[in-house]
């Protein structure tokens, strides 16, 4: 009933929609331009490093950052404590 519509409290769902979109799109844009070979590269690096250190697959992080005039390939491998000291 339109007559009593003002009595019903309207939740402001549009604001929730906006915030959810901002978060998910920021995440998706960051990964959008990653080339298709990155997962393969990650696998191959993992194999090489595994020959020398016992590591878990998820400890290898490969990231490609694009800047205006150059791109930076970042490798981040967390080694177990004994491997690094031994």
């Amino acid at each position, binding site marked *: 009933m339109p007559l009593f519509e003002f009595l019903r409290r*309207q*939740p402001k769902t*549009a604001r929730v929609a906006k915030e959810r*979109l901002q978060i998910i799109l920021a995440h998706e844009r960051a990964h959008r331009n990653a080339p298709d070979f990155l997962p393969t590269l990650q696998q191959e690096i993992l194999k090489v490093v595994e020959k020398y250190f016992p590591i878990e697959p998820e400890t290898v992080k490969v990231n490609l950052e694009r800047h205006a005039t150059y791109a930076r390939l970042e490798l981040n491998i967390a080694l177990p404590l004994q491997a690094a000291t031994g």
Partner: protein
Amino acid sequence: MSKVIVVTSGKGGVGKTTTSASFAAGLAKRGHKTAVIDFDIGLRNLDLIMGCERRVVYDFINVINGDATLNQALIRDKRVDNLLVLPASQTRDKDALTLEGVGKVLHELEHDFHCEYIICDSPAGIEKGAFLALYFADEAIVVTNPEVSSVRDADRILGILSSKSRRAVEGLDPVREHLLVARYDARRVVGGEMLGLDDIKGILGIPILGVVPESPAVLQSSNIGTPIVLDGGDPAAVAYNDMVDRYLGQDRPLRFLEPEKKGLLKRLFGS
């Protein structure tokens, strides 16, 4: 030189074909020679919206395969001069559409038919048909609704335009992007239950070409096969006419962003 403009969205059902039909008819009505191509191979629908479904003899794929000439396949609109429609094929073979074939048809529309504008009505999704519809584009009209999934998909399509289009691949000036928000309901925006234009603009970050209000007339014009832009004074028709004028460089402030003022009776008893 003709301008190739893709009408795209990612998500289905947001108003791509409605927009393609009205934008093309609006340009042609203003004296610009315009062709509109249905890229939705297997799910031909632009012909229905344009009201020329019974005049389809040959289609886009027939032309690409050399079974018909482009001149045989193009349908000349009976209401508006300067308007050509190239229907999609109903074949289930999606690979029938090729990059070379599409390029050849666009080249012919430009050089033999002297089209000023070529509107590519993209299928939904990000598969081959959608990719080929946007590949040759100089400009893109990204259609979205004030709703989370279509805004997200619009963002995805913007990413594809900036990385996979011919202009991106060949390092030319980027595809010029325009946003069209369809099915806008100002009353619900004011009530806080629908994303507003500023929210959408802020999230997608591309210039607004038009805002089309939710209107029952859009369904009705599709029932009779007349692009809504040719349908007189309905708010959606006004919004599409504004959009065409704005595209052609005229100053047309956005309308239908405020709820219609309702009289006391309407407010009490509903519309």
